[in-house]
């Protein structure tokens, strides 16, 4: 449960990376870029927060990208075609996605099926449902959208802290508090430590599983809404592959895929690290499609290896003591 050291290490890696990038491209060290980083990764930050809960509990949720896609289409159609007021559409889609997550959680628990596969089926299902709604991209013209996308707190240096960035920061903060300070959070860790054991200790494992996947899908739905603000449109193919991005962010943030350990702050840093890798590549601008991929892979490796190395270094004295026991 001690989240601090790995998080600190991730933070160090982030700052070091940022500094290195800024040396090469001084423009990077501007509030504008930082603002962009938050805005551009707002939806990723939100899903990744949900994913953190899932992964700490020992599960995984592959459906989030598709849920985002579905949400954007649903919201767009509801507002533009069905004439539903935006706020009602948001509530409806959040209820829908939360129900979807709850259903996946229930299947996982009741039938004792691996989350990987259940949520994979969920991924197909949500994407397919999106296609059924519309295969075209639907622009959203509701006035709320322009109001929200135009809203921004201006930072010194020309940077903008946009509404969706603020939503993301709020969700991350909420996630931190929920995981750290509540009984629910403690139970999430408990599930990750061992479902059977947690159950023997009196944790309502079934209920928790349902709630955790519900939370993840709910946040994916919210991320979908944010994504629709980001693009002012709904498109069934949006956010393909986001599940892997968010898993990567969670893991880079120091959360163990085996569950039981990790933190939301770490995930947030992981999202920023990924965003930074991309910013760097964009600033470079000379990379072909393939070198972009290769560079992303190399940077990903470098970050993880660096982090792993630091963790090993940090653990060294402790390892001797814990040795046999742990």
């Amino acid at each position, binding site marked *: 449960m001690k989240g601090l050291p790995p998080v600190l290490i991730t933070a160090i890696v982030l700052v070091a990376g940022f500094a290195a990038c800024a040396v090469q491209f001084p423009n990077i060290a501007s509030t504008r870029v930082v603002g962009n980083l938050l805005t551009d990764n707002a939806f990723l930050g939100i899903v990744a927060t949900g994913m953190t809960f899932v992964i700490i509990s020992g599960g995984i949720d592959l459906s989030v990208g598709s849920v985002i896609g579905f949400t954007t289409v649903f919201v767009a159609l509801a507002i533009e075609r069905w004439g539903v007021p935006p706020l009602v559409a948001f509530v409806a889609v959040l209820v829908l996605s939360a129900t979807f997550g709850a259903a996946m959680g229930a299947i996982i628990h009741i039938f004792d099926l691996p989350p990987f596969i259940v949520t994979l089926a969920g991924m197909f299902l949500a994407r397919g449902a999106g296609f059924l709604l519309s295969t075209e991209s639907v622009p959203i013209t509701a006035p709320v959208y322009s109001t929200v996308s135009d809203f921004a707190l201006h930072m010194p240096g020309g940077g903008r802290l946009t509404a969706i960035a603020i939503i993301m920061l709020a969700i991350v903060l909420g996630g931190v508090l929920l995981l750290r300070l509540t*009984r629910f959070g*403690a139970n999430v860790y*408990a599930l990750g*430590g061992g479902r059977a054991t947690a159950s023997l200790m009196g944790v*309502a494992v079934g209920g928790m599983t349902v709630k955790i996947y519900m939370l993840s899908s709910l946040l994916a739905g919210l991320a979908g809404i944010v994504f629709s603000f980001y693009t002012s449109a709904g498109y069934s193919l949006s956010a393909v592959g986001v599940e892997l991005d968010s898993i990567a962010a969670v893991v880079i943030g120091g959360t163990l895929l085996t569950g039981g350990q990790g933190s939301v702050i770490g995930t947030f840093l992981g999202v920023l690290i990924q965003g930074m890798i991309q910013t760097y590549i964009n600033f470079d601008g000379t990379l072909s499609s393939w070198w972009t991929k290769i560079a992303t892979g190399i940077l990903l490796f470098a970050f993880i290896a660096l982090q792993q190395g630091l963790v090993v270094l940090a653990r060294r004295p402790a390892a001797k003591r814990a*040795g046999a*026991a*742990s």
Partner: protein
Amino acid sequence: MENSLDPAPSLLEVRGISKSFGAVRALQEVDFTLRAGEIHALLGENGAGKSTLIKVVTGVFPRDAGVVRLGGEEVAPRSAKAALQAGIATVYQEVNLLPNLSVAQNLFLDRQPMRFGIVREGEMRRRANALLTGFGLDIDVAAPLGNYSVAIQHVTAIARAVDLSARVLILDEPTASLDRHEVEILFGIMRQLAKRGIGIVFVSHFLDQVYEISDRITVLRNGRLVGERETASLPRLELIRMMLGRELAETTSARAAASVPKSREVCASFENYGKAGYVAPFNLELRHGEVVGLAGLLGSGRTETARLVFGAERADGGQARVEGASVRLQSPRDGVRHGFGYCPEERKTDGIVAELTVRENIVLALQAKRGLHRPLSRREQDELAGRYVKMLDIRPPDPERPVGLLSGGNQQKVLLARWLATAPRLLVLDEPTRGIDVGAHSEIIRLIRELCDDGLALLVISSELDEIVTYSDRVIVLRDRAHVEELAGEAIDVTNILAAIAADGAAMQEARA
């Protein structure tokens, strides 16, 4: 206690419980009655069905038939949580706590002190500290439980169950990994609780403890109820006969060692062997045909010594020799290659591969030793498994059963079989008799003697000093992760060992003075 006519009303009544796992009938029409305020021992051989009965009563397993009444009302909990809510708190046999959570969180999981929906971390730690201090434990409750030894984990589990202040407290082999001191504390607490009217079910293979603490005894055999007696009026031999269904060829409880001083060639030796921050450098000679016992308090460095000797942990200094030739022990593979074997103390995490069958678990080490390209044929495997299942009386005697489904004691025997199958020259046993019933216990001790008569060298760790005294030719006493004393021959007895262990306090005082 409303019913003033009955001084000890029955609190928990179990009637006609049956439970089968596939073809295995683990429980058949078992009755069990627990009165308020009594300590009731539930006894039986390994695999008799004790743990299963407990799990059925607490709703972990669904039952096939029977009723459970708590305080006269029928209850049918469907989960451990429901059982807890009904007032039955349980410490299951294997430590069932979460190593990734802090000690405090483990103690207060799902019932943390809250304010405005937020866990009061400080308050929780304070209470955790207070609770554990009652058990004589002064540890950092904010650290992950996994950092601590099994013993501490076990105490934590007990403390948790006790603190739930239920009407019924069930303890499945709580003392298996505790030392005398901790057992004393636990018994003190149990007596207090009983006085408060709580009914306590106590499972143990230590008959001394049973006689010390329990009021009544229920014995199971092969999933059936054998009988229920008052402890005071049940002679020990009679109890053993009830458990085993036969007489126990009472083992030589006196020191049988040193009967035939044999050649005693050195099998393996360690000079100045150690690892900084792990265990202080030590010298150790292990001879063929000799049992060396390691004694000490919990956390004194016995397991650490064993792991260094086997190669599970790398030494950072010193010299190891096998049959006189100097060797490097960098990994368990090295140990196995040099003919060592090691039964670890934490059988669930370090020992068994739960999903694999008894046969596969038995041949695992031998196969690893032979290498990939020389697979044991199925016939050889069957033959080996069959032999050891019979020799160690592993029950049920089905080599194709996943080992995770065996009772705790039987799992332990499978581990022993795994190493015997490799025909080792040196066997390191960390708590080999933990959780093993009286019958098997004497079997294993007899086996240890036999093995060493055949020239095997043995290094045995046990918290049972009587046991160590019974079979050891030499005893090494550890304290604070250092080897402090070696006893041999006539000097080996419980008093001397205790003195060596306790010299601690005296020496410290001397040093301070």
